[in-house]
């Protein structure tokens, strides 16, 4: 079982990495976009392996199905070609390197902080749960009633320390989490998208008015 899992993961990871590399080194923007689609699909399948089918499917629907379609649409609409692209890339090399370097540092830093935080945090949770349980078992003043709670706390802490592999996260769990614990970030994100949408409309508006004026002129 674990061997099968490892093989699947390694193959998918190799495909994702190769696609990412090809995306960067392809000369034509359309090829890059198609490689990015392949990369997104491979990472979606990795999410499936990790027991997050919902995230996997949302990844395909939103990124591959919606955002990449828009990318391709724009690339083809503007007919972005090869030659101009290469010239542009040379002049922007320094900026691109600096941005990529900054992004890499940030991602690594984020990963390290998160990882060390996990290492530090979870044993503490377990220890707290064990203390609570010990307190309950020792029959300290007022403790007997708390025993089931303490046991539950210990179990919850253990569950937090060791997420069950191979256990799918259901859509219900994600929905409940989004609308209770993460309700504020969720709403903030939707507000951000609304602002972006209004901004796009405001920018496109003068163009629209000019066009309708032109149409009136033509018809009269």
């Amino acid at each position, binding site marked *: *079982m674990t061997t*099968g899992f490892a093989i*699947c993961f390694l193959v*998918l990871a190799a495909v994702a990495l190769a696609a990412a590399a090809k995306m960067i080194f392809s000369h*034509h923007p*359309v*090829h890059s976009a*198609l490689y990015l*689609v392949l990369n997104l*699909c491979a990472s979606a*399948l990795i999410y*499936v*392996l990790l*027991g997050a*089918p*919902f995230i996997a*499917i*949302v990844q*395909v*629907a939103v990124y*591959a*199905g*919606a955002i*990449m*379609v828009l990318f*391709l*649409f724009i690339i*083809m*609409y503007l007919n972005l070609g090869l030659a101009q692209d290469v010239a542009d890339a040379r002049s922007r090399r320094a900026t691109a390197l600096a941005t990529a370097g900054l992004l890499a540092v940030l991602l690594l830093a984020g990963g390290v902080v998160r990882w060390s935080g996990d290492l530090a945090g979870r044993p503490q949770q377990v220890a707290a749960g064990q203390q609570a349980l010990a307190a309950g078992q020792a029959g300290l003043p007022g403790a007997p009633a708390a025993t089931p709670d303490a046991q539950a706390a210990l179990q919850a802490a253990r569950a937090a320390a060791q997420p069950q592999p*191979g*256990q*799918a996260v*259901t*859509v219900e769990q994600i929905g409940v989490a989004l609308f209770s614990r993460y309700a504020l970030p969720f709403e903030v994100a939707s507000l951000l998208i609304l602002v972006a949408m209004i901004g796009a409309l405001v920018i496109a508006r003068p163009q629209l008015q000019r066009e309708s004026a032109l149409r009136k002129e033509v018809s009269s």
Partner: protein
Amino acid sequence: MAKGGTQTARAERDWTLVVVWIGIAAVVLLVVGVVLGRLSGAVPHLQAWWQAGPSLTGLVEHLLVNWVGAWNWPASLAWLRPHAGWVAPVTAVLAWVVLIFLFMLPMVTYQIYALRKVVGFMQARVGPTQVGPWGLLQTPADVLKLLTKEDVIPRHADRIVFTIAPFLVLVPASMAYLVIPFGNQQVVDGKVVYSLIGGDLNVGLLYLSAISSVAVIGIIAAGWASNNKYSLLGGMRSAAQLITYEIPLTLAVVPSILWVGSLNLNTIAQYQDHLGNWLVWPCFPGLILFAISALSELGHVPFDLPEAESELVSGYNVEYSGMKFAMFFLAEFSNAFILSALGVTLFLGGWQSPFPESVPLLGWDHGIFAVGWFFLKTLSCVFFLFWLRATLPRLRIDQLMSLGWKILIPVGLLNVLLVAVLRVVLG
């Protein structure tokens, strides 16, 4: 020959295309089907079945049990037994993949035959009559002709993208069969006796919408790679139409999810266990919306702008010939079946019989009877599509866009709200 601007391909290359298509779809289906199957809990049963080792699930099981007899473990395969956790679902999904391809090709071939006959009848013509009795061999002959045709790639086309674009359209179309409930699942004492669903995914409906949104990439890529302005414009037109109508299609599906409280297509079909429980009643506007958006997603009349033969030079597929052209066609007709099946599952009771269980024969809906009801309903929906095709005039592109954005999407949102309120009020 290559200097002539085209390249002649031997017929073998077309068969290679078919093999590659089946291969890609099989690999993706394996990863999705096996892993999600494991996660959604179907696998312990499968594992038990594999360790006991009598037969395959679903239809294959029936075939094996009835035709081949009880299958005993050959000694050479005994080493696989400890790995049943992986081997069992892999076998089941592979069996399903084989079934899908055995089903899809004849289904599409005779769907085209039925289309020509039905539309011919409605327009006071006779349709195909010459090849075989009643012209029954006309469409198989057409398919064989397409397979042996020269495979032309335009000189300035982007060869790689030109070749993979048909796969990007056809692979998603064939992957959709994984989650369609063709019939019921017989469970005795927690063991699945047989199952007429390929992958009983908890996110089945989302899976379908994600899969169908990937096909748009194939259409845009096909239009662009041909390096022909009519192809490119056709690709853009199709993509704009598909993106526009994907939104009302999704909104039309939401009421059914709200009512049943599940994204699992099997659960939704099981919920509609008698006529009164069919989701048409609470979600009727949803069905209308679904039908309109599905027509547009399929590029059927009155939304057949992607290939308006009488006024535009077809669409993204003008430069395609031979097997690659056939692959786009195959995907289109297969999608007609899939969307009809989805509509039946979401609104018209799925594989359930409309008669009460007590009515003999007509009231039965398990095993082969469930499959019968499912096909009866789905093929009626497909017939409805043909009917519209023979009747309605075509919309103009601006009418199509304003119908989608200004009417269907607001109505869809309103419908979701209405059904949510109704659900809360009725408990």
